[in-house]
């Protein structure tokens, strides 16, 4: 945000803040060790507010739980903004000095009264007012989110709506105040930082910026495309249009992780060439023409990953990989050579040093310093630089150097798939504590917590549809249908059911989910589709 795609704060700041908002995040189960820092904050006197349709184990720790209807985040955030403005609690000095677009923002949020938000989101007006006042009056506040914000068709709007609140109250760029997207996988942050996104070179440098292009062309002695590439969603659309017939997939299992799984499988099958590089023969690998067995990056190879607090840390080889499995870099170099390019052998450290020479954010992070300091938070411009605990301290300089932080005008848009008589129930998906994504990793150990996949349903709906605990029910959406045992969960509200996609081989949840994506981020709306439940003849 404001020119840097990373959380602005450090975890330790959660311990030294006055208010923590977890929005669309069940950190207690999905980021348990981050939640340890939150718990220390709570024990030090911080208030916790959790915004989540479900009364999760995180929400159970909250001073206030805002149980919103799935997909009403912008309506709620805009109402919080309006309430802060009407109560005169905004940080006028900060807004005047460090931000732009405030008047437009004020006009955008004006219609979002507490009453409107209560009607749209289902959160009582008094609770919205309480959070608005608590957030604005807090000396320091952390605003954190996870996939509950980003797995929507309007993901980027949701994020912008939350950042607006931080700008409104000056809750960014100071120790203890910041905005933190908690990353779902161990190197989501690092993958993006390294340029594994279609519009960035390593270090957040724009792929369409002529100076950056020239710099990377010089370094790589190659001609680079002038335009940003495709994200995963664009890639699938290109396959659909017949513009793309070859895919080389490294460490991703889209045959099971994509929304609307049946459709995703069809597209993968339609490819002329599919190459998959992974540590297991995944469902995607089974569709491939060529499979490259890879070593597990975190324990069979050396390298770095980057965490949700922008901390670059070393991964080190502890095990020899099995069989013919090889390091990812070695596979790519071997492939490049077979394709006629004279690539040298690279160690992980050599690849990293090349990255440091091209990315100012990482320039000062030698392996030696990473070892010595236990990781370094970017940006780290040179080998004297300690890395930065929090970002955007410049917004508190007078005058502000560089660009001001921009408010964004975003409007509420309900989930694409509305509820109706045929599909009257909202299905939302997420994770459980002991499992992970499609289960490729977490399926390997025997967790005593694991009950197998269930459809979690409120006691009210269980009664309404005549569903008993453990009973197998048929859940159908417009795209597909699965049979799944029911689990009655008092943390759910009537009209809302929950499940995961951890046990895809048994229960293919993504047969149900909807493949509509955010136009800017390409993320699918895993958090909201419409389903119905049937108990008979299962």
């Amino acid at each position, binding site marked *: 945000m404001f*020119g*840097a795609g990373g959380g602005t704060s450090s*975890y*330790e700041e959660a311990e030294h803040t006055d208010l923590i908002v977890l929005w669309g995040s069940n950190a207690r189960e999905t*980021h*348990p*060790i*981050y939640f*340890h820092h939150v*718990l220390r904050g709570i024990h030090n006197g911080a208030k916790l507010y959790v915004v989540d349709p479900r009364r999760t184990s995180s929400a159970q720790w909250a001073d206030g739980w805002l149980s919103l209807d799935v997909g009403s985040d912008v309506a709620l955030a805009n109402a919080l903004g309006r309430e802060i403005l009407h109560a005169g609690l905004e940080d006028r000095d900060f807004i005047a000095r460090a931000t732009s677009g405030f008047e437009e923002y004020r006009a955008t949020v004006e219609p979002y009264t507490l009453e409107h938000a209560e009607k749209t989101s289902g959160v009582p007006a008094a609770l919205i007012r309480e959070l608005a006042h608590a957030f604005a009056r807090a000396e320091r506040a952390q605003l954190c989110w996870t996939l509950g914000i980003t797995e929507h068709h309007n993901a980027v709007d949701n994020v912008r709506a939350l950042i607006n609140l931080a700008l409104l109250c000056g809750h960014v*760029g100071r*120790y203890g105040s910041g905005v933190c997207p*908690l*990353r*779902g*996988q*161990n190197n989501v942050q690092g993958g993006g930082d390294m340029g594994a996104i279609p519009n960035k070179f390593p270090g*957040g440098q724009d792929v369409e910026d002529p100076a950056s292009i020239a710099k990377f062309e010089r370094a790589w002695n190659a001609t680079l495309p002038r335009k940003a590439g495709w994200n995963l969603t664009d890639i699938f659309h290109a396959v659909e249009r017949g513009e793309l017939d070859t895919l080389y997939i490294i460490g991703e299992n889209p045959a099971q992780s994509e929304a609307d799984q049946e459709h995703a499988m069809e597209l993968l099958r339609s490819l002329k060439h599919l190459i998959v590089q992974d540590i297991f023969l995944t469902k995607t690998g089974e569709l491939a023409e060529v499979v490259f067995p890879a070593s*597990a990056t*975190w*324990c069979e190879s050396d390298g770095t*990953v*980057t*965490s*949700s*607090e922008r901390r670059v*840390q*070393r*991964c*080190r*080889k*502890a*095990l*020899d*990989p*099995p*069989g013919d499995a090889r390091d990812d870099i070695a596979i790519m170099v071997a492939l490049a050579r077979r394709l006629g390019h004279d690539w040298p052998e690279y160690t992980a450290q050599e690849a990293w040093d090349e990255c440091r020479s091209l990315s100012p954010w990482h320039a000062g992070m030698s392996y030696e310093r990473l070892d010595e300091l236990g990781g370094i938070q970017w*940006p780290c*411009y040179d080998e004297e*630089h300690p890395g*930065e*605990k*929090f970002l955007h*301290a*410049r917004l508190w*300089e007078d005058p502000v*150097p*560089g660009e001001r932080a921009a408010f964004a005008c975003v409007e509420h848009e309900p989930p694409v798939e509305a509820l109706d008589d045929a599909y009257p129930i909202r299905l939302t998906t997420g994770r459980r*504590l*002991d*499992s*992970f994504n499609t289960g490729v*990793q*977490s399926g*390997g*150990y*025997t*967790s*005593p*917590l694991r009950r197998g996949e269930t459809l979690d349903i409120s006691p009210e709906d269980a009664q309404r549809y005549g569903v008993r605990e453990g009973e197998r029910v048929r859940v159908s959406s417009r795209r597909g249908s699965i049979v799944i045992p029911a689990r009655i969960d008092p943390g759910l509200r009537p009209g809302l059911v929950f499940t995961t996609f951890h046990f895809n081989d048994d229960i293919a949840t993504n047969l149900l989910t909807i493949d509509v994506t955010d136009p800017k981020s390409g993320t699918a709306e895993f958090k909201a589709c419409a389903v119905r439940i049937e108990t008979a003849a299962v």
Partner: protein
Amino acid sequence: MIRGPIPQAPAQPPKAQVEITIDGTAARIPEGSTILDACKSLGVETPTLCFLQSLTPVNACRVCVVELEGSRVLVPACARRVEPGMVIHTDSERVRHSRKMVLEFLASSVDLSTAPDAQRFCERYGADPARYAESDGSAATVEQPVKIDNQLYVRDYSKCILCYKCVEACGVDAQNTFAIAVAGRGFEAHISTEYDVPLPDSACVYCGNCIGVCPTGALMFSSEHELRARGQWNEAEQTATETICSYCGVGCTLTLHVQDNSIVKVTSPIENDVTSGHLCVKGRFGFSYVQNRPDDV
């Protein structure tokens, strides 16, 4: 991104220095430090069993006691904060005698075979637990069958010295799950789940943070327990490699303990800023998917 000033955490106000004397050496120690901190800064080695830097002191084991002039009783170094003018003796006859007896009581009633620190202290203080044996040759012990009720870790309370560390790590000092507490009194005191139910019926979330703090091996990875039972546990042959957990985006440092190209145990460094030595169930136990032994699949 614009390069701005390097952001700083607010500076802590400087701490006043407290003048104390330890074993005849005068020292200036920052206000708020414990006697244990002071001993460490002076290089005075003090045995501890129930103390851990990441946990609140509970004063349970009494092995760190020191003699404080003017105090009727010995005081626990781990919890007592320094005060101006304190005169402390860490190696007086009274201190050595007290430490020795504490260790003898523990060693006579508890299996310390997997507690290297306690063994080392016993040697240092010349503890002779055999002298507590009754006429039939046996002292009262806490010996009992190993509790094995899940596939991730075992609880062998024959080895438990009731240091409370597991209770603290499960409670407010780290995990805040509160699955275990001390039940019973006197010699009958023991660590228990609610109503003594097996772990799978308790509130336990299998973070294993209790294992991470256990000083005696009473709480142990099933993998380690099984290897020990087969006589195959070989610490000398093990490597310990620090890496980053493969699951969520928090970036917890894992120390992988590897024997014969297999991960046999996972810990995290206590001084690590992200974890303070604590992990979740996935980080601590979710490694099996990379084990390439056929019998692990």
